[in-house]
C-alpha cells in the first residue's frame, strides 16, 4: 500500500528528488552546523524546499506564505537574536557533555521513524466521510479562492482567535525583552553592562567559571532580565 509504484512524469520526479535532497541537506545542516548563523541559513534552504513541494501539490497560497512568514520573518528574527546576543561564534559540536546521549537519541529517533512508517503502511487513510472544509478541486476554483472561503466561513472563529493570539504574543515579547528600569536603588544598575564583559574576559561562557559564579551570587543577579 505504501510506496506505490512510481508513475510520475519526469519533471515531477525531478522536482521531487531535487527538493527532497535540498530539504534533507538543509535539515542535516541545521543540526550539524557549528555556527548558529550557518544553521539559520540551512533552515532557509529547508524552508524553500518545502515551499516548492507545496507548489508541487497545488498549495500555492501556502507556498507564498511559507516564504514570506518563515524565510522572511522567522529566520530574520532568528538572525536578529543571534546577532543581538553576540553568539555568532563557533560551538564545539564534537564534545559530548552527556555520555551516551547521541547514540541513545539516534536509536530513539530511528525507532520512532520505523514506527511511523510501519503505521503508515498499515493505515487506512480514506475514511469515506465528506470534507467539512470543502473540496480542493470542486468547481475548478483557484487554490486561494477555496482556501479563503474555508477560512472565512468554516474556520472564522479560529481565524479570529489567531488575531488574539498574535496580539498576546506581541505584548508578551515586548514585556519579556524590555530592559529592567534602572532606579537609584537598583543594585543591578551598573552591573548590567559589566556582566558580559566580565564573563568574556575569562574566555568565557563555560558554566561554572569563577567569574560567572561570582555574577550568579550577586543579589538579584540571576533570573532578572
Amino acid at each position, binding site marked *: 500500500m505504501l510506496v*506505490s509504484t512510481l508513475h510520475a512524469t519526469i519533471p515531477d520526479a525531478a522536482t521531487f528528488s531535487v527538493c527532497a535532497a535540498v530539504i*534533507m541537506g538543509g535539515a542535516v545542516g541545521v543540526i550539524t552546523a557549528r555556527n548558529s548563523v550557518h544553521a539559520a541559513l540551512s533552515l532557509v534552504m529547508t524552508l524553500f524546499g518545502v515551499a516548492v513541494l507545496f507548489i508541487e501539490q497545488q498549495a500555492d497560497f501556502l507556498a507564498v506564505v511559507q516564504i514570506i512568514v518563515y524565510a522572511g520573518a522567522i529566520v530574520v528574527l532568528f538572525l536578529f537574536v543571534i546577532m543581538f546576543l553576540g553568539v555568532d561564534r563557533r560551538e564545539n559540536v564534537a564534545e559530548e557533555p552527556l555520555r551516551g546521549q547521541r547514540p541513545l537519541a539516534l536509536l530513539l529517533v530511528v525507532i520512532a521513524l520505523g514506527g511511523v512508517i510501519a503505521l503508515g503502511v498499515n493505515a487506512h487513510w480514506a475514511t469515506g466521510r465528506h470534507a467539512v472544509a470543502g473540496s480542493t478541486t470542486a468547481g475548478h476554483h483557484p487554490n486561494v479562492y477555496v482556501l479563503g472561503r474555508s477560512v472565512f466561513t468554516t474556520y472564522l472563529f479560529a481565524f479570529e482567535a489567531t488575531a488574539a493570539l498574535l496580539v498576546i504574543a506581541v505584548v508578551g515579547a515586548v514585556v519579556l525583552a524590555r530592559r529592567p528600569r534602572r532606579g537609584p536603588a537598583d543594585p543591578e544598575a551598573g552591573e548590567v553592562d559589566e556582566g558580559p564583559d566580565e564573563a568574556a574576559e575569562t574566555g568565557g561562557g563555560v558554566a561554572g567559571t569563577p567569574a560567572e559564579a561570582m555574577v550568579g551570587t550577586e543579589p538579584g543577579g540571576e533570573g532578572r532580565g
Partner: protein
Amino acid sequence: MSIPGEWYLILAAALFTVGALGLLVRRNVLVMFMCIELMLNAANLTFVTFSRMLGDIGGQVIVFFVLVVAAAEVVVGLGIVVAIFRRRTQTSADDLRQLKG
C-alpha cells in the same frame, strides 16, 4: 501524473526525525528552536500531502493556522531567550540550572 503522496509522507517523516534528533542532541537554545521549526515544517508537509490525497482543503487551512502559531511561538520563545541570555556569552541550555536541587 504527479508523485504519489506516500513519498511525501516518507520525506516528511524523515524531516521530522532529523528535527527531533537535533532537538535531542544540540545544546544551543537557538538551534533547538530551529529544530522545532523543522518538525513543524514536517507536520505542515504532511498536512498538505493529505489535503491533496483526500481532496480536502481542511489540511491546508490547518497549515495556515500552524504558521500563525509558529510565528507567535518563535516571537515569545526568542523573547525568553533574549531575557535569559542577555548577560551571558553562550546560549547553552546547560547553563539553565538555577532550579537544580
